[in-house]
């Protein structure tokens, strides 16, 4: 039972996890209400649909497995509404966004569960700093080798996901100048960044076994890679997205990932080489800092363009795949973001400029998440 077994899952199925902010309605600061909220929701939902997270001011929604965008969105909406109904009775507001704009991380109380206690022991205050809010997209893979192929082929597109989802411009009370300040706090963890360039599942197993024998990690959960394999689900997991401000955008991002994976699995036009990582850190930073205006360098061709242009070029290629997956609407929504609608970070900055109140901004995020703004 030493080797990681890559469980078989239906290819290109989707699952989404969303980490959400719980805020009070008085000054819109984070509030430690996950225990009360989870107690009230109790057994009303599918087990595991709403889960505690590292801090008591966070919860996580996880969908079941879907093959189509529409069904995924329907479930996300149902989960959102169930949590909202419970939150309304407890006066707990829920918001999307990659980081709370003005909370002080020293004020956060970490969840009193074994896994999170261990994280706190290992990482100290970093554990509180990574109490940020992300969207994780799982895409089902036929086997471990394909999962690793997809993981590395996707790395070129990681800046797309960062820029499209970015929703954490404000952090610790100031404008960070980044579109996604959240990823900066994840980057401080020693096992963050990109996965090693390994393309065969048995080699990956050997790598994991060595890391475990060295005592660097205990399980796959200890790797905080941008994209990581999740063998027990039979998926790869894209972890760079900030939690968007709406479930619609979360579902659209998942559908974009699905279409992209279909394209990569079918076309296999460019086998990944380690060269894709030459410009990886640069592109990742550009996406965090400048969002869709960031610059992307294609390591294979040397071509430079903005992330928005690259997204639009990719959307054109993916249209046929989106049609097969019945995800044209979602792809259209992604194109609209790149074409000028802008990401959620931009929406937040525009909102803040209207009356320069961060609590009010959070309140607007709450309304937006509710679907009333």
């Amino acid at each position: 039972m030493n080797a990681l077994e890559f469980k078989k899952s239906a290819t290109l199925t989707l699952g989404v996890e969303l980490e959400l902010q719980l805020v009070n309605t008085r000054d819109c600061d984070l509030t430690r209400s996950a225990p009360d909220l989870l107690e009230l929701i109790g057994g009303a939902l599918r087990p595991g649909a709403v889960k505690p997270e590292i801090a008591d001011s966070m919860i996580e929604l996880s969908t079941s497995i879907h093959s189509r965008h529409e069904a995924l969105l329907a479930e996300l909406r149902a989960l959102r509404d169930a949590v909202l109904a419970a939150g309304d009775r407890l006066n707990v507001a829920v918001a999307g966004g990659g980081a709370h704009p003005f909370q002080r991380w020293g004020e956060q109380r970490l969840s009193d569960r074994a896994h999170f206690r261990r994280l706190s022991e290992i990482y100290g205050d970093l554990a509180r700093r990574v109490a940020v809010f992300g969207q994780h997209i799982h895409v089902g893979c036929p086997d471990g080798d394909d999962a690793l192929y997809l993981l590395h082929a996707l790395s070129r597109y990681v800046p797309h996901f960062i820029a499209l989802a970015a929703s954490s411009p404000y952090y610790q009370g100031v404008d960070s100048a980044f579109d996604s300040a959240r990823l900066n706090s994840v980057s401080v963890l020693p096992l963050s960044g990109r996965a090693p360039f390994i393309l065969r599942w048995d080699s990956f197993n050997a790598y994991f076994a060595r890391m475990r024998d060295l005592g660097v990690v205990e399980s796959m959960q200890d790797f905080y890679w941008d994209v990581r394999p999740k063998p027990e689900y039979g998926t790869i997991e894209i972890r760079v997205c900030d939690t968007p401000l709406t479930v619609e955008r979360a579902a659209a991002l998942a559908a974009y990932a699905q279409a992209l994976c279909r394209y990569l699995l079918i076309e296999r036009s460019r086998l990944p080489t380690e060269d894709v990582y030459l410009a990886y850190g640069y592109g990742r930073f550009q996406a965090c800092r400048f969002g869709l205006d960031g610059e992307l360098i294609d390591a294979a061709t040397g071509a430079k363009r903005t992330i928005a242009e690259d997204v639009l070029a990719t959307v054109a290629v993916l249209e046929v795949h989106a049609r097969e997956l019945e995800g044209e609407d979602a792809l259209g929504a992604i194109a609209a973001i790149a074409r000028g609608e802008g990401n959620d970070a931009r929406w937040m900055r525009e909102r803040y400029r209207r009356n320069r109140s961060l609590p009010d901004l959070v309140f607007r995020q709450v309304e937006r998440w509710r679907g009333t703004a």
Partner: protein
Amino acid sequence: MSDFFFLPAWPPPVEDLPWLAFLLIVAVLAGEAVQRWLHLPRLLGWIAAGVAFGPEGAGLLDEDTLGDIRGLLDIGIGIVLFELGQRIDFGWLRRNPWLLGASALESALSFAAMWAVLLVLGMPPVLAAVPAAIGMATSPAVVLTLARELRAQGQVTERALLLTALNCLYALAAVSMLVAWLHAEYRVGWTEVVAHPLYLLAGSLVLGAAFAGVTLGVLTGLGERTDAQFICIVVLALVAIALAPVLHLPVALTLFVYGALTRVFDRARHFAFLEFGRLGQMVVILLFALSAANLEFGLVPAGALAGLALVIARFAGKTLGLAAFARRSALPARKAVLLGCALMPMSAVVLVLAQDTAELAPELGPALAAVILSALAMLEIVGPLAAQFAFKQAGETAAPRHGPGPA
């Protein structure tokens, strides 16, 4: 003339010493000691310091001096009620109307239970209704101070604050009415019976609303959060506290309305929460110490039994009321009982209310004093302990905290 004429008389004349500053520092030190070594709420230390200084203790504060600092008590009460007013959350009451049911029932049942006890003790009905109405109110100073000290967050804490705001409102309104009825009993004209409470309620509302409007206007004019804003908030609150008595309006109700309406009027949430910071903390510490010094423990034995019966009736009424609506208002039964504990504190405001009443109807004073004061003295100690127990048992305090971090 003595050779040592330059030495002061011994003991030095008390009124010349800055005894208020002395009291404050002793209270602060006692608070820290109580917290550090006994793991009890700091405010018990503040109370102990007040008692030690008061007529029952060292006698540094005699009744005349205490009479002189009524203005300071008003400031403390005003500050607490201003903050309490901001805790009224109309949105929450709209989304979870059963909360209002629970609030009404806990207040009504505790009123009824206390009234029944006092009737059994042979008090005339209208007279008995006054302490029963006063007893509906939970001490906002205790609940706010404890929630802040323990950094408590969660359903028991949030509901304790909301329900305290509501039951204080009921008590303030009810007492105004009852005082008017008492006037009627003492053969005052009917116009006064109707017009006086109406004036108190409407006057507080108008004055509070006017100040809320002015405050938001000034703060908006000043722009970003600055020291100037803080000064304006403090000064405006002090002016309101001074103005209310001039207009014969209750400070408590006026400042409560002021706080509640600043929140309602601030639609853009520029000023999410107006606080008095460390300055307010100093005044609140003095409020605890001075109102404790006001407590006449000499009356306690006389009223002990009746007082205990009152305390039990009050707790039973509150807890039953909360438990009855627990499920419908989305609160587990266990937490409803803890919420009952959290609502136990009863202190300074009550005393001032009692004094207000005593001033208006002199015949009422001594009759009320023994029973209320012994109940009050018990709850002064038991209340904060019960509330701390509730917040801790509900798991809503800043601990359990693991890993490194600010203490």
